[in-house]
Structure formats: C-alpha cells, structure tokens
C-alpha cells in the first residue's frame, strides 16, 4: 500500500498508465487480436522519440527559454550524411555512424554559439539554425533517396523474442541518462542551472560549459536518431525528422519534466513515447480520418498533461 502510493506519487507513472489504457482500448476494439504485435511495433517506433526526447529533456531542464527546435532538420541532415558516407557498404557502417554523430554534434555546437556568442534566445536561434541546416541538407542530399547498407538496415529491424534490439539500446540509453542526471557533476549542474541560474553561478557551477555540453549532446542524439531512422525506414530523406519536433517536446512534457526547468524525468520520456505511438495506432485502428486523428491527438495530449501535471506549485 505504502509502496503503491509512493509509485503513484512519481510523475512519470501517469504516462505509462496512459500508454496501458490506450493499448487496452485498442486490444478490446480488435477483440484481443494483435496485442503483442502492437507492443513490438510501438517499442520500435517509440525508441526514435526517446532518443531525441532525452536530448530535448536535458535542454528543457536547463531552464526557461531553453529548447532545441533544430532537431528535425538535424535528423534529416544526419540521415543523409550517414547514408552517403556508408554508401551502401557495410564496411563503412561505423564510419558513417560516426559521421552522423559528428554532424549532430556540429549542429548542437552551432546552436550554442548562436545562443551564447550572438545572445539570441534559444527558440529563435535553433529555429533559424533549422532553416540553414535544412538548406544544407537539400543541396547535399539533392533529394535523392539513399539506401542504407543491408547490414545496418537488418540491425535496425532486428528483434529478439519480439523485442527490437533498438528498444533495448534505447532503454540502456535512458538508464545512462538517468544516472548522468542524478549522479554526475554534469547532471547536477544542469538541474542547478534550471532551478536558478544566478544561484548556480554563485555556487560555483560552470554555467557556460554545462549549457554547451547540453546543446551539443542534444544535437549528437539528433544525429544518432537520423542515422537509425534512415536504417529503419531503409533510406534517408529531408523530411524524415519532421514529426520529431513536436514529439520530442511532447514526450518530455508528458513524461513529467518541468517546463520551468530544474526537474527532469527520464522514465517518463519512455512512457510518454509509448503513449504517443500507441495513441496513433489506436486512432488508426478505430479508423478515424486524418483530421479527426490530429484533433484527438491534440486533445488527448492536453488532457494528459493537465491530469499528470501533479501538484501545482505551492503558494
């Protein structure tokens, strides 16, 4: 009883509850068919949201105003870079992956420089960076659909006992992120800055270095996501990251991370990603048209955030 109550007090539990309800509703609708397959598919798709969601979570936790809107463009460019460098050959797999990570790292660094050196608010800086990155992507990729090496594509679709390998990697990444957040100097610094930047600086926290690492980390995770998406969907293209702008922010917020900064929640990112993917599956299964689907998605997100908002700030 005590434990159950402690569990209910965790802000991330609601995203998992939501995911479960949506899954149960869908299975009930189909009369019990396809429940397992649905979970497998959801795990595979959710992991892409989780990877960028974790990056976005660190950025948002830095405090009010911090956000990375360049993720979709970043993902698109990294997917093209990865596929071009790999050039369909498995022997270039590692190098291509490194190139995608480097591309993401460069985007994150550029974002940070715009914010720090030119003092542009992050929302504007990352949005304008997105336009530039997208143009680079268009001229670099020339709109060609470049195929991944067969080994890479197989790896991205590999499953053990119905569990996608990527999902396992996603869980490992989440665990690492949770440890980094709470048990490393970097994570503590992010949390401190998000709560009170001035106090953090006066307590000796290295504010600029921490912000730089955070934007660079988010960019790098975007790069990783780009390469994996290209492998999973068997090809890179400019629009491959489009849905990850809203998704990356939604999973952070639904997952119980404070938009005001200073309070992050890693398990919630997974729960929220599963919830969003299952929600789309459910609405598809119910046979709604695109318009109705979007309206319902919006309403349900609003509902979940309101319900899972937890205790209001005191006073």
């Amino acid at each position, binding site marked *: 009883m005590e434990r159950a109550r402690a569990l209910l007090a965790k802000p991330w539990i609601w995203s998992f509850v939501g995911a479960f309800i949506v899954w149960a509703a869908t299975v009930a609708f189909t009369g019990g068919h396809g429940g397992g397959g649905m979970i497998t598919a959801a795990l595979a798709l959710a992991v892409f949201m989780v990877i960028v969601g974790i990056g976005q979570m660190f950025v948002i936790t830095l405090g009010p105003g911090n956000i990375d809107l360049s993720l979709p463009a970043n993902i698109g460019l990294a997917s093209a870079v990865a596929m071009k460098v790999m050039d369909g050959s498995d022997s270039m797999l590692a190098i291509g992956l490194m190139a995608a990570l480097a591309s993401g790292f460069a985007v994150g660094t550029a974002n940070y420089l715009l914010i720090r050196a030119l003092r542009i608010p992050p929302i504007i800086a990352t949005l304008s960076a997105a336009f530039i990155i997208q143009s680079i992507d268009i001229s670099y990729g020339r709109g060609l659909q470049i195929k991944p090496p067969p080994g890479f594509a197989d790896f991205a679709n590999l499953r053990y006992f119905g569990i996608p390998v990527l999902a396992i990697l996603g869980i490992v990444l989440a665990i690492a992120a949770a440890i980094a957040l709470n048990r*490393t*100097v970097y994570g*503590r610094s992010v*949390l401190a800055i998000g*709560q009170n930047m001035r*106090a953090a600086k*006066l307590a000796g926290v290295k504010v600029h270095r921490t912000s730089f690492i955070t934007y660079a980390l988010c960019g790098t995770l975007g790069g990783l996501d780009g390469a994996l998406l290209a492998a999973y969907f068997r090809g890179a293209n400019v629009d491959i990251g489009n849905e990850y702008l809203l998704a990356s922010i939604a999973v952070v917020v639904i997952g119980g991370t404070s938009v005001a900064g200073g309070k992050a929640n890693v398990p919630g990112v997974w729960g929220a990603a599963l919830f969003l993917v299952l929600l789309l599956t459910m609405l598809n299964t119910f046979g709604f048209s695109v318009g109705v689907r979007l309206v319902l998605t919006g309403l349900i997100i609003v509902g979940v955030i309101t319900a899972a908002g937890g205790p209001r700030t005191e006073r």
Partner: protein
Amino acid sequence: MVDARTILVKLEGVEKHFGAVRALDGVDLNIFAGECVGLVGHNGAGKSTLMNILTGTLATGAGTISISGSVEDRYSVSRALALGIRCVFQELSLCPNLSVAENTRINHPSLKGIGWQRKAAALIAQKLDEIFPGHSIDPSDIVGDLSIGRRQMVEVARAFTVTDAPLDLVILDEPTSSLDSHTAGQLLDFVRRFVGSGKSCILISHLLGEVLGNADRIVVMRDGKVVAADRAAVFDRDKLVTSMGGAAAREKVAAEAAKGTREIGPICVKARPARQRDDMQLVARSGEIIGLAGLAGNGQTDLLLAIFEAAGGSRSGIEVTAPLALVAGDRQSDGIFPQWSIARNIGIRSIERMVRGMLISSRREAELASRWQERIKIRTPDMNNNILSLSGGNQQKALFARALGSDARIILMDDPMRGVDIGTKLDVYDLIREEADSGRTFLWYTTETEELDNCDHVYVFHGGRIVANLSRDELTEEKVIQSSFDEAV
C-alpha cells in the same frame, strides 16, 4: 489608560497547524488605534504565520478575528485590504520586470484611464520623498535594476500610499533588513509620525534595539504562543532575550573577537573597485575577517561579485590566490535551489570533490550534510527534506554550510544575516571565528553595524569606492557613517 483607546484588531484563540507542526497555538492579540506594536521572537516562533493570518493570506485553523469591533468570519486578502490592513512582507513582493510606478498601480486599481502612469508615479514619488528624503529612486526605474535596499524602500513606500481604500494598520516584517542605518532611521521616524496621526503599525524585527526604541508596546512570541505583552518601557534588551527564550544575551561578541590571537598569513586577495580613482584597495590576508561597510548599495556587493568572477580568470585590479565561495544574502534569488533537499543544496559547491570513479558518491554527500548539520545546527529531522521545509534562518545556515563545507579558503559574504534571528547569528559568528582561526579568510559585507565588531578591519564604501579603512579600535557607527559622507564633498 491604554484600554480606553479603540481596539482596531482583536485576535482570540487563533490556531494554525501545518501537518504535525503547531505554528500557532492559541494566540490572543489586540492592536489599538494609534500605537506601534513591536513583535519579536525567534525564527519559527510563529510571527510570520500570525501576520499571514492577519492579512488574510492564510485561513485560521481555529479562533476569531475581529476588526474594529465586528467579527470577521469570512476573512480574506481582499477583505483585509478593504479594512485598511496592509503588510510589507519580508520576502520582497514587487514585480521585478515592472517599473516602480507600475508596481504601485498594482495596489491601486483606481489609478486608471489616460495618464495612470503619471498618477501612479506622482503617488509613489510623493510617498518616497516623505519617508526617505533624498532617496534618488525614479518612479520610472525598473524594479529589477534597483539594489535590494532600494527595492525594500519602494516596497515600504508603496504600502503607505493611499488612494480610495482606507489605511489603518501597516505590518512591517523586517522592514530594515536590507536598509543601511541611515535609511532605516528615516523609516522608523516616519513610522512614529504615522502612528502619531492615529494609525497603527506592527513592527517585526530581529534588531531588538529597533523595537525597543520605536514600539509603544512589545509582544513576544515563542513556540506559537504569545509569552509576554507589555508597554515597551518595561522591557530592556536582556528581558526581551530572556522572554524569547534564546541563548542568554551575549554582548560578548566584540570581546570574543577582540581577544583573537589569530595567525595572519600571506595576502590572498587584493581588489580595487572599478570606480576607484586613488590607490586605495582592499587587501585581505589569510585568517583575516574583513568587513565591507557603508550605506547599502554603494558598491560592496559589486566588489564581492567582481572578486568572485576574478577567481575564474584574471581581471584587472583584482588578484585572488585561493579558491573561494560565496554566501548569498538574497536567499531566494542568489542562493536556494528550491527543488532540492537540504543535503543537495549543501553539496552543490563540493560535487567535484565527491566524485568517485565517474559518479558522485551518495555516501560522501550524506556525510558532508550530516557533518554540517551538526556543526552549524540545522534544525531538521532529515537532511533529505526539501530545503523549503526549513525556516529562513536555517536555510541561511544551509548556505553557510555550502560555503564552509567546500574547499574554499576565501569566503565572500553578501550581507548574509538579513532577517536572521539572533540565535542563528550567534551560532554562525562563533563558527566564522573558528574557521578564521584555521586560516580561512572572510570578506563580509553587512548592513548591520554591530556585526562589524566581528571584523579585524573594515573598509567603508561610498559611491562604488573605498573611502576609508578602519581598524577595529577605530570602529564606531558614527565613524562609518561619517566616512560614508566625507567623500560626498
């Protein structure tokens, strides 16, 4: 004789519980028209809770509130304002992004239509002139750009402005905590004039001299109860301290400090304020306690921050040769991490030393916290409780623990004792002396002249510059004030 006057506020049997904590345990209190009531007690005695009830911010658990003879059973913030009760809270409540005039408008909905800004500006300017002649605050100044002392002046002046709502009782909760002695004196003079015109005032202050010198009647609170209430004339400092139940009055601070036979080591800080024109500079040797004095907001905090930043890299005019840490005075904006436990708040300055392998060692973090809980006497059942569960004085102790528990050899203190009770102060003074004996250096900006008795020598600031360097023997309040004004010629 007192009883012949009209009773403005009558509280009977007021109780308030927060969970298991009895913040107020049956309080009876009368406020008469035309008197200034001094309210004293240690942090956590229930003063602030009582005032929150009087202003309608908190609902009573039990008991009755009567204003001007009629029982108020649906008391609220708007009701209190309509009845002419206002409060200047200890935690400043101005909107930092708005101008002084705009902040004034917030309290006066009747200032509307074309030209409301002009009207609000005139209203606040007139009141500032009345309370703090020569204040140099412009109604168009943005509040966030003002020093904390000036913000407090605006906050106080705003509470006394009148448009259409009545004004009968003003509660001043630590109104002078961020003011220097000159402006504090101006405020207290004004309070006497205000009371003289038949209005009432409640003065809450940890500076007992301030209460003894200005209140008509003094009410002492302890553990959620009123333990003494009488004319001010029957109290003296010792009697107040005894009824507050704190450590016996210790006037020995100066004596204790004076007998110091401390080893003074090599120079570890040299700093010249950016606006200094002559060759005066601040020099601190290891093991010294250096005071920064003068009227509030005259460059003391700026110099501390400049020294703090110089530690990261070099900066012209400032040399720092050892690691340093800062104890903030403005707890909410410069010190506390509100989401965190007490232990994490203390540990943040030392996380780099607590890393084992790649990760911060939980054990070392807990050890640091419990060691300092004991040394600085933080009153909490569990250091893993949220920092906001502590009273203001104990939060300040946690900030001291953060600095003193770190590897810093130089501790910068930015008026850290504002609004802190005397018991906490005495604990911390002792600790500072101990730490100085072990070779640590303290640079201590304070607005309370008596605190300067703890210092080996004192730099007096005026207009962003150092204008005097006084040794402890030369140090008197008159001398500090005099030095602050000498430069003005």
